[in-house]
């Protein structure tokens, strides 16, 4: 039974990452999209987050159950992985979602001001914010650290 729970945990983690991929792609694509109207079109790709929420819930629940079944709650790696997951989720929500708001707001202002020079410059500044690169680095680094903790169970 334990192996099947871990199987479900791994499978749901793969599906969660698949569902999350579109957000990462949109975020990185927004950086290079200089046309405000086209950048707003990219937000259309983000309209379905249900699969992501359900699979994240499944990842967490099966991880917690596997922790009890494997008697891992006394080990440091398990708690570290959980803390990492929470920290990454908070960073993603705060800075990742914040970037979408920043670009969307600047794009809407540029369109409202009929793409004036000043509004396009403000839009370019918003697009060039550090957040996509920073969030991507934290996300990939955090994912690698969590996989390492799960696979090596080092402490």
């Amino acid at each position, binding site marked *: 039974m334990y192996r099947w729970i871990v*199987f479900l945990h791994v*499978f749901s983690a793969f599906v969660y990452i698949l569902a999350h*991929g579109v957000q990462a792609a*949109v975020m990185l694509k927004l950086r290079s999209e200089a046309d405000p109207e086209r950048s707003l079109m990219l937000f*259309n*790709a983000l309209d379905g987050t249900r699969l992501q929420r359900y699979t994240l819930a499944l990842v967490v629940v099966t991880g917690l159950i596997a922790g009890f079944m494997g008697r891992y709650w006394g080990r440091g790696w398990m708690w570290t992985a959980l803390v990492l997951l929470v920290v990454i989720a908070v960073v993603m929500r705060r800075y990742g979602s914040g970037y979408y708001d920043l670009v969307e707001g600047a794009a809407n202002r540029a369109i409202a001001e009929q793409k004036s020079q000043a509004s396009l410059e403000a839009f370019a500044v918003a697009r060039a914010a550090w957040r996509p690169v920073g969030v991507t680095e934290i996300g990939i680094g955090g994912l690698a650290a969590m996989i390492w903790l799960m696979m090596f169970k080092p402490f």
Partner: protein
Amino acid sequence: MDLYRWIVFLHVLGSFGFMLAHGASASAAFRLRRERDLERIRALLDLSASSGIVLYVSLLVLLGAGIAAGFMGRYWGRGWIWASLAVLIALMLAMWVSGSSYYHRVRKAVGLEYMEGSKPHPPVDPASAEEIDALLASSPALFLALIGGGGLVVLVWLMMFKPF
């Protein structure tokens, strides 16, 4: 240092990278079924193509590390590793035959650069709204999701349980 475990770690990391990069295409495939605005269709297709390099690099990492781990763990005499390789190749072929060729037809229909066979082509005039509608209505997105999801279940099961 246990090199084998690090190679498997790289294999798993490559697999996650592949899934992350594939997410844009998978999501765009479902979104395209409902979209009829030409510019929005173009934006979705461009988004879908934008993660291509990460996708192929991740695929190379997961394949290279998987093959190396197979040798290091002496698994090439076992059935599950050959079965998983066969499933991966079958999945890629199915995705290419049903997915890539279809989305290049859509790219052509909406006036974007496209591939025919292995030959790249410059944009041509967009097709009529009716033709685009018919093309998008015949989307293989659900079929691709079913075989992709089913294939992933089988692959993860083979890797974790090494049943034969």
